[in-house]
């Protein structure tokens, strides 16, 4: 009997969409900061000022959302747990990982049957979390430069002893492009799995529910 399972709890879904929105806003404003292609007219205005302001507001939103999500990795159900992002911890996880990888590379026919994340996706998400955290920490190190005697600068000073701020900017750009690449991958895979798994993958990130046949697990 097909069951309706409640998989993604509210904090998972809310932080997912807040992250997505914040990253889109940060990428658009960030691209403008890196390459201000729209030139304000001679009358001025405050174009770059506002764009940077929006970047920094979205930066705080993303940071808060990530903190909530990290908290939920310890407080939420086992699909939300940090353990779900390291499928290699168990033999079953390792088996399903290679099964899934073979499916994606057309060398295997079977999709691994999962209630939560499929193991290949889970590894990708772990990587994305790391990228976002680097982006946040590096972003605040750059931001702190406006006041080198301030608290933010004191907290991020260690970063600039490891790496010059110019290379940090380059990394800030590189991660943006990696996240853009991930975005394409993510939307494509979600749609593909929605079609092939027939368990409501796409709608589950809105509703939280997926359709599972326990016998097939």
């Amino acid at each position: 009997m097909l069951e309706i399972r409640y998989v993604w709890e509210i904090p998972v879904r809310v932080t997912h969409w807040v992250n997505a929105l914040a990253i889109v806003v940060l990428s658009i404003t960030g691209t403008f900061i890196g390459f201000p292609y729209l030139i304000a007219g001679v009358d001025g205005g405050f174009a770059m000022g506002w764009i940077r302001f929006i970047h920094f507001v979205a930066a705080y939103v993303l940071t808060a959302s990530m903190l909530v999500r990290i908290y939920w990795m310890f407080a939420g159900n086992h699909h939300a747990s940090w353990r779900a992002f390291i499928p290699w911890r168990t033999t079953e996880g390792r088996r399903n990982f290679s099964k899934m990888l073979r499916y994606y590379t057309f060398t295997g026919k079977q999709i691994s049957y999962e209630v939560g994340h499929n193991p290949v996706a889970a590894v990708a998400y772990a990587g994305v979390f790391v990228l976002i955290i680097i982006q946040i920490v590096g972003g605040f190190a750059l931001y702190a430069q406006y006041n080198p005697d301030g608290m933010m600068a004191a907290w991020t000073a260690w970063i600039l002893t490891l790496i010059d701020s110019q290379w940090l900017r380059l990394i800030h750009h590189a991660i943006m492009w990696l996240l853009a690449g991930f975005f394409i991958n993510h939307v494509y895979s979600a749609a593909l799995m929605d079609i092939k798994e027939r368990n409501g993958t796409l709608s589950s990130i809105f509703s939280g529910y997926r359709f599972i046949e326990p016998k097939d697990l």
Partner: protein
Amino acid sequence: MKNEPVRSEAVGISEEILRKWEAKGVSRRDFIKFCTTMTATLALPLTFAPKIAAALEDKRLPVIWVEYQSCSGDSEAFLRANQPTAAEIILDIISLEYAEVVMAAAGHQAEKSKWDAMEKYKGKYLLIVEGSIPTGEGGVYCTVGGESAVESAKKLIKNAAATITVGTCASYGGLPAAAPNPTTAVGVRDLVPGATIVNLPGCPVNADNLTATLVHFLTFGKLPAVDAIGRPKFAYGKRIHDNCERRAHFDAGQYAESFDDAGHRQGHCLYKLGCKGPEAFHNCPTIRYNEGLSWPVMAGHGCIGCASPGFWDTMSPFYRRLPQVPGFGVEATADKIGLGLVGATAAAFAVHGVASAFRKGDAMESDKVKVEE
């Protein structure tokens, strides 16, 4: 400037001190101006001006100024200070025991005077180092009087009361240390870690900052407070970008696109021409160079971050905002590579999608599918 009578009470410098300087040929106006300028450069309240004036009295601070891998640009910057009185005052309060660019002695005689001065003022003299120190091949790339820069610098630093490095080369290695650093050049802080030292990087050092550091040392008997990389906070505590006169244009989104366009003529921000003001810390916008005459951004050229460690490597290309991506060609920017990556990803997944659409028998729960009439 109008020549109103200058009243010493206004800043509280005693008549006696002013008269002494007058006797030496420095007008009271010039002396008061010097003291207040120094107070302002050091970011001290004006009430410190009399303290500074008093400290400058009858002090003869012995100074040894040595040069290693340098272009003498810092010596030039200091000596060419176009306001003679500032130089006069400072040369009056220090006793320059050894300085290659200005001294009359040469050869063994000069060498002797350097080591004599070191012995005579052991632990009391101020050492000024200009130029980087090459450590490669046992230091053979720079020797003076048969002695390597490594050896002589170590001796001089160890016996000094304090060391001031002038210019980026002496502070962090500078141009000679730029990749691939053929002479394994280093700055003083890497040659003698833990030495009492203050770094005054810049290409060249700003003479006003050097003067202010000397005045600080004379007034308070110690070196000024420094940041994480040994630069005095009074001079390197603020970002260029945050004090720049073109900042309003930055915030307004008005940028010069080339060095000859209308935006450039109107004084728009030089961000898109590669200005490194957003990552450089120096007081150029406030004190400027050559007694407040101008500074690069004012003159229409972007900042190149010359006071930052490793600037030749990290701040180049000078006419682009971001460094080159290692391993890619000259024309590749991070964003071109990024766009290429995103394009390749999209193409790969498009192909994958088409292939997946034609795939048969891989969909799950097929036994539960009921096709509607």
